[in-house]
């Protein structure tokens, strides 16, 4: 298990890649965008993006705005 920070919360994950993390969190088909360690990771690169202990992952979704 790897300790990560996901959207500001500390979590334990078995995911080796960003795509696996989304799958693990039930977000594989969710309309979302991702960043790891303050760098944007495009959807097409998630499966090849490895996760390491301490990584900071951000997952965002569409929301209201002005």
């Amino acid at each position: 298990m790897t300790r990560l920070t996901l959207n500001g919360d500390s979590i334990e994950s078995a995911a080796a890649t960003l795509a696996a993390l989304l799958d693990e969190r039930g977000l594989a088909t969710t309309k979302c965008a991702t960043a790891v360690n303050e760098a944007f990771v495009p959807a097409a690169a998630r499966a090849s993006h490895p996760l390491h202990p301490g990584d900071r992952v951000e997952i965002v979704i569409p929301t209201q705005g002005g």
Partner: protein
Amino acid sequence: MQVYGTELAGRFLLGTALYPSPAVMQEAFRASKAAVATVSVRREGAGSGAGMVFWQIIAGLGIPVLPNTAGCHSVKEAVITAHMARELFDTRWIKLEVIGNSDTLQPDPFGLVEAARILTGDGFQVFPYMTEDLVLADRLLDAGCEVLMPWGAPIGTGLGLLNRYALRSLRAHFPDVPMVIDAGLGLPSQAAEAMEMGFDAVLLNTAVAKAGDPVAMARAFALAIEAGVLARAADPIEPRDMAAPSTPVLGKAFLA
């Protein structure tokens, strides 16, 4: 009005936040005949599906979306947020906000120019939320922006056009640059004034969403914007200090 080669269907850009309910928001958009809907991105909340529900409502409006980088205080944050928004909403448009002060929510002009330059280089079409500063406008145009969005007043205040001199000056210096008054409007009369001054469009959210009757207010803004556009095109008279009778003087009965 054209922005980045795209003809907008109107001159009203409306935000999607702060409405009492999604149904009221949809109804307000219908009443507004808004040409563009502004949207944002926020952290996913434990698989709630909220993003998809919201997205379906927005897609149902049938108008282009303009994602923002609201709440970003650094260039880095704004640039990453823009990239995430581009993928989520499948658009090169970005309403670029780099906030410089938490109390006034006023743009950080230095960060704004830097972020605009980076994003333009990355293929974005940047709509910068800016103060009404003329030199800042020049720098943003240099950075590749093809539209400018000066504020009327701080976000959510409803104070209207606080610095008319600077706004007039901005309009006069860059007559061919599309300009949108973004933020600070509270009343339709202020939107009409912006259009009378020659601005191309207005962008607002709070004034409609937080009104007692958002749907009626959306319609009121739409009508005011139309009135302002018509007035501008109709070549208004110049104000003058001396009275000038409108009723013919000649032929008046002598009754004194």
